[in-house]
């Protein structure tokens, strides 16, 4: 029986190692075929037992904070009165909240769940457009289309949930990034860690995907100055 248990244990160890080995052996150009084979063989086991982790805690570097900005514009109950009386009601600016929310999400574990959700939301982001150059690669274009579809579905799911919670309203989700300040900024310039200047709104699309890069020789011309 002990021999059987040791054999099962060896397979279990393979299941533990499979995902981190695959995770670390992946580069931009290739995945190590031996580790990929191990991971594929063991993936049903390691996935169902929730052993498929890369253990990338604060690695490779501590990164910026990722948040979700939620703009909520309550839907007017009825606009019959204002239209019949010819009144022009000025729309109130939308209320904005962020996820996670340290003040309202307590205990800390609940806040951390929302923090992870914000990280997940940002990790699923796919731009709404890609450049004409990228579209020429059918494999890349297909992957982008799939990723973008998933991102929209995630957005739809979250907006549906927030609408249910907040009542009839128009909700827009956005992505925020909080940069990490340097020691000089905090200790000398007295910048607070939650200083709004550290918070950037991330674009849903890249600036202008249709703009083609200038040929290299054009950039070298002395009068090629930014407009």
């Amino acid at each position: 029986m002990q021999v059987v248990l040791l054999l099962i244990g060896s397979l279990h160890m393979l299941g533990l190692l499979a995902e981190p080995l695959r995770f670390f052996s992946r580069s931009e150009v290739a995945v190590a075929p031996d580790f990929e084979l191990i991971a594929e063989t063991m993936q049903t086991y390691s996935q169902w037992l929730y052993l498929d982790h890369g253990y990338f805690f604060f690695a490779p570097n501590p990164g910026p904070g990722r948040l979700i900005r939620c703009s909520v514009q309550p839907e007017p109950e009825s606009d019959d009165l204002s239209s019949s009386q010819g009144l022009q009601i000025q729309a109130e600016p939308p209320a904005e909240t962020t996820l996670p929310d340290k003040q309202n999400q307590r205990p800390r574990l609940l806040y951390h769940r929302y923090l992870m959700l914000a990280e997940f939301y940002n990790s699923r982001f796919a731009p709404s457009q890609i450049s004409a150059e990228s579209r020429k690669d059918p494999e890349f274009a297909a992957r982008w289309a799939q990723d973008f579809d998933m991102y929209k579905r995630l957005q739809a799911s979250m907006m549906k949930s927030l609408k249910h919670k907040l009542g009839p309203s128009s909700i827009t989700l956005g992505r925020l990034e909080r940069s990490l300040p340097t020691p000089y900024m905090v200790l000398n310039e007295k910048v607070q860690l939650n200083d709004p200047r550290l918070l950037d709104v991330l674009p849903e699309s890249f600036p202008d995907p249709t703009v083609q890069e200038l040929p290299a020789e054009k950039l070298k011309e002395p009068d090629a100055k930014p407009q």
Partner: protein
Amino acid sequence: MQSLNKLSDDQGSSWADHWQPLLDFFFQPSCSHTLALIRIFTGSMIAYIHLVWMLDLAAFMGPHALIDNAFWHALHREQVLDAKWTYLALIDSMPLIWTHEIMAMVAGLLLALGFKTRLVSILAWFLTLMTVHRMTGMLFGLDQIVIMLSMYLCIGRSGDSWSVDAWLHRRSTGPLEMAQASWSNTFATRWIQLHLCVIYLFGGIGKMRGDMWWDGSAMWYSAAAYEYQSWDLTWIGYSPMFASILTHMTVFWELGYCALIWPKWTRPMMLGIALLVHSGIAIFLGMITFGFMMMVANLAFVSPKLLFNGSMFFSKVSRER
């Protein structure tokens, strides 16, 4: 082991001599006190985790969840077909979901108390696993550690000590039989230890890939992450040398853990650093639950005898008072 000894006799060689250290490592009987302490903390944490899910359950599961079942299926069945199966992704009924979560919380509490330990350890692990598979996008290291510990607790006899089961058994037959050593305690403890070594090894390798862990600034940038901060740690910026030493100590401790935790003379040092690192994560980086459970996992390297003697000492002191 008998089959191995037989093989050894047949061949006239010392097969068993080669295997014996390995067999001893995994199967030499040991007492249950280490696992019992891990059981108490893990069971309590399982109950707490489910309690926190229940604080905002409609946002996490059911028809109005932030990540609804349709998206869950798109992620785990359409985009890739993975093995993350859970019945919670098939149901939208809030009463059923509440029932599941309450059962999981009760199973966690019973595990902590050690009542019907074998049954509730399997139940607590399984119900928590089902929740974890459903909660894609909201998980972190805490869930990994809790699932790991509860899985190995299913193997050992953690209910033999410091449990309602042990108390009930003592009342009927006396303490001796219940407190006996078992190979399954060693087997379960060894797997917690090995799993922990894998976690730290890859945690360390991951950090080695980042330049901030080399240039000594990672500790500062971890402290400066507002989303994680619970207590102000930015004072470490006044001493870049101190911040750098902490950064490098963390990386090399993680990398060296899988080797230096085994020799008796380096083990206290490795456990001491584990205590410092994880209490730092708990206090300053706002991950109290995760930091705490990592410390609990490190208990696997504390011998049951030491824990038993410690408990005897404390009960003696409290009686004298």
